[in-house]
């Protein structure tokens, strides 16, 4: 049962736990405070009642006894010397007795007390009457009869005295009862205090423990988050807060990385723009005289009658000029990239279209291409011609790498890649000899080529085309078993980076 309660508490959120504990603590504190007030009030009431009734009654009873004894004494004094001053004082004591009796009646609250007081009053009246007779006998000098009667009223005196004693004991008993009552209440309060004080202390310690373990410690961990990473102990609200903070830090790091990447790209673009401008100027300057050369060669070819060797020389010259022309075209294309004309298209269609265009070339190279596709990829925003060119460059590179033919597989996929969002990816894998480790870092750099007749612009142009589409081209892997590249494009609803 206790175990079950513990597990239930454990499942509670931090807020619910703290609230519950605080409520219990407040209730316990208020209960103790209420009980203390109740006890003080009760004690005060007992004391006031005791003071107003029992102690007054006690004092009255003692006063009655005293006055009664005084009256008995004064009567005796009068019997001895018949001095009237004893009678005056006797009268005073009589009045005092009646006064005390009235006071006792006023403060009495017990039925038994009332009966006693009635008896005292009744006996006292008889006593006074008999005493007056005794005094009259003494006044008439009938001392013998007076002494005789005087002796008789002593029994009534004793009876009144005893009644007063009885009345006194009655109220003494009430005082004892009040004391017992007081002690009982004190016991309850003590018991309650013995329970509530440890309970309050326990709750306060528990709240303190939760505050330290689940709030202060996690906050300390959070403060040192960058140093230590996310601590595993965080859970609940603070865990969520920690996760949120970690996400924020990740976002900031991502944003910083992207900013850094953008800066690098800008710097690279500026560099490329300068290089491109130089390349364009140079290419254009070369192109015109080269065209002039081509025209003259064309003219010569028609007019000369060449032998076989001369013809071969002529063809080599023509071929080299064509090669030069191709290099120049690449330079110009690199320096003046055509403006993107994006349209909604599935990359799968572009793959099919590119393979269709290259079918003869692939056949002549002895390369077999396999497309792994479950269904057509979702639509992207892409310039179809440029995307095809980027893909074509990769496929042709693979063909050139696999000298005696080989296999190329193109795997289509779509996935969410943080922080870019949903992307369409093409993984192009060949089984060629791979790219030497030494060159891996430089393959996307312009004018960098390991091929004898390469311009070093193919991969650079492909990379730039993908970047301009808001995607990327990565070398995934390369080794003796082959090379794999990944082309990624943002899906249409996520293409916020597309430059138009």
């Amino acid at each position, binding site marked *: 049962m206790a175990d079950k309660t513990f597990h239930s508490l454990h499942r509670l959120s931090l807020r619910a736990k703290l609230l519950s504990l605080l409520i219990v603590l407040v209730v316990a504190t208020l209960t103790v405070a209420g009980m203390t007030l109740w006890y003080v009030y009760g004690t005060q009431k007992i004391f006031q009642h005791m003071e107003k009734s029992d102690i007054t009654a006690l004092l009255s009873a003692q006063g009655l006894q005293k006055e009664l004894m005084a009256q008995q004494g004064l009567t005796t004094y009068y019997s001895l010397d018949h001095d009237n001053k004893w009678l005056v004082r006797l009268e005073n004591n009589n009045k005092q007795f009646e006064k005390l009796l009235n006071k006792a009646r006023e403060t009495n609250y017990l039925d038994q007390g009332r009966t006693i007081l009635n008896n005292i009053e009744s006996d006292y009246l008889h006593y006074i009457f008999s005493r007056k007779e005794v005094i009259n006998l003494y006044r008439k000098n009938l001392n013998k009869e007076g002494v005789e009667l005087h002796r008789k009223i002593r029994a009534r005196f004793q009876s009144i005295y005893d009644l007063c004693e009885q009345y006194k004991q009655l109220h003494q008993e009430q005082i004892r009862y009040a004391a017992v009552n007081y002690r009982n209440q004190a016991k309850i309060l003590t018991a309650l205090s013995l329970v509530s004080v440890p309970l309050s202390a326990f709750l306060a310690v528990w709240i303190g423990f939760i505050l330290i373990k689940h709030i202060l410690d996690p906050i300390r961990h959070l403060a040192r988050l960058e140093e230590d990473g996310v601590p595993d102990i965080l859970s609940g609200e603070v865990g969520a807060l920690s996760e949120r903070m970690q996400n924020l830090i990740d976002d900031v790091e991502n944003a910083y990385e992207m900013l850094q990447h953008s800066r690098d790209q800008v710097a690279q673009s500026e560099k490329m723009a300068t290089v491109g401008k130089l390349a364009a100027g140079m290419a254009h300057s070369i192109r015109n*005289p080269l065209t002039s050369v081509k*025209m003259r060669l*064309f*003219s010569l070819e028609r007019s000369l009658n060449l032998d076989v060797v001369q013809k071969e020389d002529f063809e080599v010259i023509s071929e080299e000029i064509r090669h030069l022309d191709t290099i120049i075209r690449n330079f*110009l294309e690199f320096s003046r990239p055509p403006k993107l004309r994006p349209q909604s298209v599935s990359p799968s269609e572009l793959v099919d279209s590119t393979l269709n265009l290259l079918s003869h070339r692939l056949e002549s190279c002895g390369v077999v291409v396999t497309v792994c596709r479950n269904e057509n990829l979702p639509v992207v925003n892409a310039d179809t011609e440029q995307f095809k060119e980027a893909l074509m460059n990769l496929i042709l590179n693979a063909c050139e790498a696999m000298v005696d033919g080989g296999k190329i597989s193109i795997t289509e996929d779509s996935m969410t890649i943080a922080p870019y969002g949903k992307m369409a990816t093409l993984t192009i894998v060949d089984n060629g000899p791979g790219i030497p480790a030494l060159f891996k870092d430089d393959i996307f750099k312009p004018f960098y080529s390991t091929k004898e007749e390469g311009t070093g612009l193919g991969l650079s142009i492909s990379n730039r085309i993908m970047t301009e589409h808001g995607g990327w081209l990565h070398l995934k892997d390369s080794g003796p078993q082959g090379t794999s590249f990944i082309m990624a494009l943002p899906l249409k609803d996520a293409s916020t980076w597309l430059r138009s």
Partner: protein
Amino acid sequence: MQRTEVRILIVERNRRMRDFLRREFSRRNFLVEDAGNGNELFLKLDSDITTHLVVLAVNTPEGLDRGLLQQLITNYPNVPVILHSYLEELSDDPFLQKVAGMVEKSGNLENLTRMVSIVLSRYYPDLIENDKPESSNV
């Protein structure tokens, strides 16, 4: 009118190319004038000698010299212009649509001579009535 009466003005910055074109068109019995820049072009056009066709091959690394083509088309609307250029370098200039023809500047002169025949037969049918244009794929 025979080809010897048809005057072609070749505008080409490269002197050797200009000389070559001049020689080749002269060999084909055209009267050939040439100009190395815009000033020479307009001087020739403004002279008393009639120019029937302009072969314009003025290019800059940034593309076509837009002002030159615009001035030529606007001020000499009756003179057909054949653009002999690197077509891929051309921008979306609206004046490109007003030229009589465009030929890629390659090593093959036949493309240009064929376009010249086509344009001449279109603009001056009576001038070269016996000179049928060759089928063209330019």
